[in-house]
């Protein structure tokens, strides 16, 4: 795990030593993958772009070019605007918590004891479960009247909590589920970064009588700043595409309060079967994702701190 960040190194092709000769048959090494790449990634990407300018009847298989109409309809669509807002809200609810909580857990568990190892195992465990299992668990937790949360709140005399049915709380409830599901990843990324900090720095700080807060702010966080930025971007990319939890826990409701952009694409494409319109929405999502991915590329290729 200590080695993880270095896999990103040396990616420029020019750095590779070259053999002079090559033959056509040797192209068979890259041919299978390139074929799959073109057919199932590049081609659909282009097709989606074209479809976004079409009115599409998936069942009749007929397409008609309608220019920018899908985009015009999209940007004036109240539900799409709401989906964009909900998606940003969801990112704001989850990403800072992922970063702060992930770092907190990593700081506490960055030691070689059996209990720290056990807790690391525990925090990462939910990460390997599929979204359907996670939502099955958390829908049961949030169940009105008989859910775990209600059971717990009964002790304090708070009654009739139905978070997923409440437009003011449903998105936050899904955010909590998401954090429970995904906290393991930021935790291990921070742990890997913390282990890279040389111990001598801390010894020096101790000699200077630095307080724990001073040590955290002036030594630990600056030393792992690159990882903090990286985790933030990784989480923004991941949470921006939130879909499964929402589709399974609220299906975008109540009152459209949890509909995300991917959920919108899914419903437009596969519930209303308006493929052109859905493609237009997917293009908007794609552009935002490209910007975020470019940012990630830029950060992860930078070796020095900033």
């Amino acid at each position: 795990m200590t080695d993880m960040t270095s896999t990103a190194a040396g990616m420029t092709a020019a750095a590779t030593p070259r053999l002079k000769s090559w033959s056509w048959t040797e192209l068979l090494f890259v041919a299978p993958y390139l074929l799959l790449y073109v057919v199932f990634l590049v081609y659909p990407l282009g097709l989606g772009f074209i479809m976004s300018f079409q009115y599409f009847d998936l069942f009749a298989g007929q397409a008609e070019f309608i220019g920018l109409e899908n985009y015009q309809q999209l940007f004036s669509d109240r539900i799409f605007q709401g989906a964009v807002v909900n998606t940003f809200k969801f990112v704001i609810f989850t990403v800072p918590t992922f970063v702060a909580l992930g770092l907190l857990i990593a700081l506490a568990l960055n030691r070689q004891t059996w209990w720290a190892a056990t807790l690391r195992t525990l925090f990462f465990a939910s990460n390997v479960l599929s979204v359907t299992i996670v939502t099955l668990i958390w829908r049961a937790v949030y169940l009105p009247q008989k859910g775990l949360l209600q059971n717990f709140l009964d002790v304090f005399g708070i009654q009739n909590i139905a978070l997923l049915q409440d437009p003011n709380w449903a998105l936050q409830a899904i955010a909590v589920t998401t954090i429970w599901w995904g906290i393991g990843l930021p935790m291990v990324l921070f742990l890997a970064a913390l282990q890279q900090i040389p111990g001598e720095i801390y010894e020096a700080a101790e000699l200077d009588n630095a307080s724990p807060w001073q040590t955290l702010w002036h030594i630990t966080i600056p030393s792992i700043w690159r990882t903090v930025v990286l985790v933030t971007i990784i989480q923004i990319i991941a949470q921006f595409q939130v879909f499964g939890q929402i589709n399974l826990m609220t299906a975008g409701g109540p009152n459209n309060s949890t509909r995300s952009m991917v959920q919108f694409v899914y419903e437009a494409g596969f519930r209303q079967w308006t493929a052109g319109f859905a493609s237009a929405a997917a293009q908007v999502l794609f552009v935002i994702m490209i910007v975020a991915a470019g940012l990630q590329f830029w950060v992860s290729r930078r070796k020095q701190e900033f």
Partner: protein
Amino acid sequence: MASKTIARPMSEQILVASVVILAIAWMVPLVWIVGLSFKNSLELVVDPNAVFRFPYTLENYADLMVTSNLGVWLRNTLIVTVTQTVLVVAISCLAGYGFARIDFPGRNLVFILVLMGLAIPQHAVIVPLHKMFNDWQMHNTFQALILPGLAGPFGVFLMTAYFRAIPLEIEEAAKLDNASRFRIFWEITLPLAVPAMATLAIFTFLHSWNDYLWPLISATRPEMYTLTVGLAATQTNIDQSEGLGYLMAQAVFAGLPMLILYIFFQKYVVRAVAGAAIR
């Protein structure tokens, strides 16, 4: 002075204590649903707190074996996941070696174009992908479930980087013996890449096992469902359902294989997931 020497372990203790409490909170939902899965569902309807006391029963698990489609979904998931994992590793090793060692014209450009694919989210191509398989009349087949998952560039990226790090000299001797390029790859270079292959295999397996959106769209017939989609279909009416114990037994049954695998291969799982996130 004295206050500072005490303050340091104090804040440390508060941090550790809060993380321990957090860990307990993290575990409670899991323990609770395992408890539910061993309870008679009707008893839970009368009193949800019944989960905290005897009697417990295996009847939900017995029902699962008899009435549910879980066996079929598990089989489908295994077919899709294992095939995808084997193919991704094989194809990525070949392509990775090609990009690392064979100096065909335009290689760097092609490689950069492939790397750019890392930025394409699955969700951006889902609508056209569905249309393609619809045109080919291939939905509700294993090919449809498997093929799109082979196009992601992460494996090629990983293997190319790994092969490049292997010194060229190792292959020189074999080259003098006029061995074919494939033999050099197969007998000399590939065995050195086993750690990277393991990382890629684990990541692909996990990713494929837990995939939700594509199987949801492509497999519409219950006999073609994977576990994730099948479980999604059964939980739609959880609010009205009186079978809470039964549903939770399903969750436990479906989640257990991954959790067991995780506990045995924890180091590799963590490395694979973290490595894929950083890229």
